[in-house]
């Protein structure tokens, strides 16, 4: 069963098309890696799923609910972290999460639980504006994880983290479907990173979906195209390069 499905989702800004006829199917209980170079349309797609920006064409369903009719119900089920940490700098980490908790109608214990999950418990009393970049990133993640929502949308969640932090967050994301039965849509521009945590991948370039399916299928697809299937990063780069050349009319 698919938790998120999009049908020909398109977003145009005047003469620029950020996302073009995107049809995604994200199965329940999986980590779905959303891959693409900078400007491929990953964040725009995620923003459309959250209702932050309105699609020009197409539609989508989240857990059987349609947008915009059931926007509120959709948002109740999604924990999200988009582009960069978003918080009130004049409030402490704890006060920030408390605001989210109140909006979601969660018990007080959910704040501590979210801090624990994001590994930020010892800094929860500090003002958010005084956090380091990595801590802000973790606060953003804690804000997404609070209440353990059934669907998580995470846009490049490891940006700004040190290697240890990257490893911790990756491990956490990897464990979420099993531990809390949730579905994670996580974006990255690094296949090597997605490879370590995703069950399924969607590869996006210039707003178009180049590939969607399990990692194994990507390997098979790479082999059939004559790429080295043991190095998916190379496969990804070749796919992007080929698509760019096709767009420029070289192929």
């Amino acid at each position, binding site marked *: 069963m698919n938790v998120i499905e999009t049908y020909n989702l398109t977003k145009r800004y005047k003469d620029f098309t950020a996302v073009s006829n995107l049809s995604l199917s994200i199965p329940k209980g999986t980590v779905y890696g959303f891959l693409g170079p900078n400007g491929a349309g990953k964040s725009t797609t995620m*923003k459309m799923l*959250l*209702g*932050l*920006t*309105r699609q020009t064409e197409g539609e989508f369903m989240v857990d059987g609910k349609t947008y915009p009719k059931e926007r*509120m*119900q959709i*948002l*109740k089920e*999604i924990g*999200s972290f*988009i*582009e*960069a*940490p*978003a*918080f*009130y*700098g*004049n*409030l402490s980490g704890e*006060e*920030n999460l*408390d*605001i*989210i908790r*109140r*909006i*979601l109608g969660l018990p007080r214990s959910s704040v501590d639980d979210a801090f624990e999950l994001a590994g930020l418990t010892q800094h929860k009393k500090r*003002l*958010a*504006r005084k956090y380091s970049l990595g801590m802000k990133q973790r606060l953003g993640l804690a*804000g997404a994880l609070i209440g353990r929502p059934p669907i998580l949308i995470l846009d490049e969640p490891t940006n700004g983290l040190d290697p240890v932090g990257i490893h911790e967050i990756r491990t956490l994301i990897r464990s979420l479907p099993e531990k809390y039965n949730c579905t994670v849509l996580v974006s990255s521009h690094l296949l090597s990173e997605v490879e370590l945590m995703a069950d399924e991948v969607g590869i996006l370039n210039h707003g178009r979906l180049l590939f969607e399916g399990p990692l194994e299928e990507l390997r098979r697809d790479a082999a059939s195209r004559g790429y080295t299937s043991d190095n998916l990063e190379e496969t990804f780069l070749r796919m992007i390069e080929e698509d760019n050349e096709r767009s420029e009319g070289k192929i």
Partner: protein
Amino acid sequence: MSIAMECRKLKRTGFLPAVLGVGLLSAMIPVVNMAVRTELYVGRQEPPLQILMEANWQMMAMLNIFLIILAACVLYHTEFADNAVQKMDTLPLNPGSIFISKAIILAAAAAILTVLESAGFAACIFKWFGLPEGCWLELAKNMGYSLAFTLPAVILMLAIGSACRNMWISLGIGVAGLFVVIIIPPDMLAKSGLYMFPFALPFQLIWDADGPGALNLLYAAGAEVLIFVGAEALYLKVRRYFV
């Protein structure tokens, strides 16, 4: 619930000290003016409140509007500074409720100013004019009108603040609006109808509180509030198409 949450967001912004500080400063204006120039005002034929308001209200109203401009900017700066507004937009919360809650908070701040200023006027009436009959009712009516005339500026400034990510732009628009009112002579304001402009309305003085002039201004203020709330609702509806 939403109002309590908006109040929490104002922690460490200096919002409440600013409201109290400006309120006290404004309340002190008639007291200090009366104390240093007593002979200029006592012994005149007009009612005490009219004497006091004619002598001091321009300065007090300017302080009120300036605080409303600053406070509206602060209220939305907390949302935009670290992109918290985006987080709020991803939560199951009606964005209109954030605006309405902020409007109630800012209107309450304007009410605090009115109460403090009323106390300043009351102290002056008590100390220098005795207590003429009906003066309390007159004071309550006048200050009630003043508060009502402030509400269009409250809503307009919040609507501007909600649309401008950069606080300096909303602050600039507000200050420019206030300067326009200050530099245009009052008779020209009256002739051109510009006295209905949200930043000019709080400068209006009412002597016949039950007369048609006062009620017309009240209706105008009400209409402006409805127009600006409608404009904000429309903005909140269409903004997602342009992001």
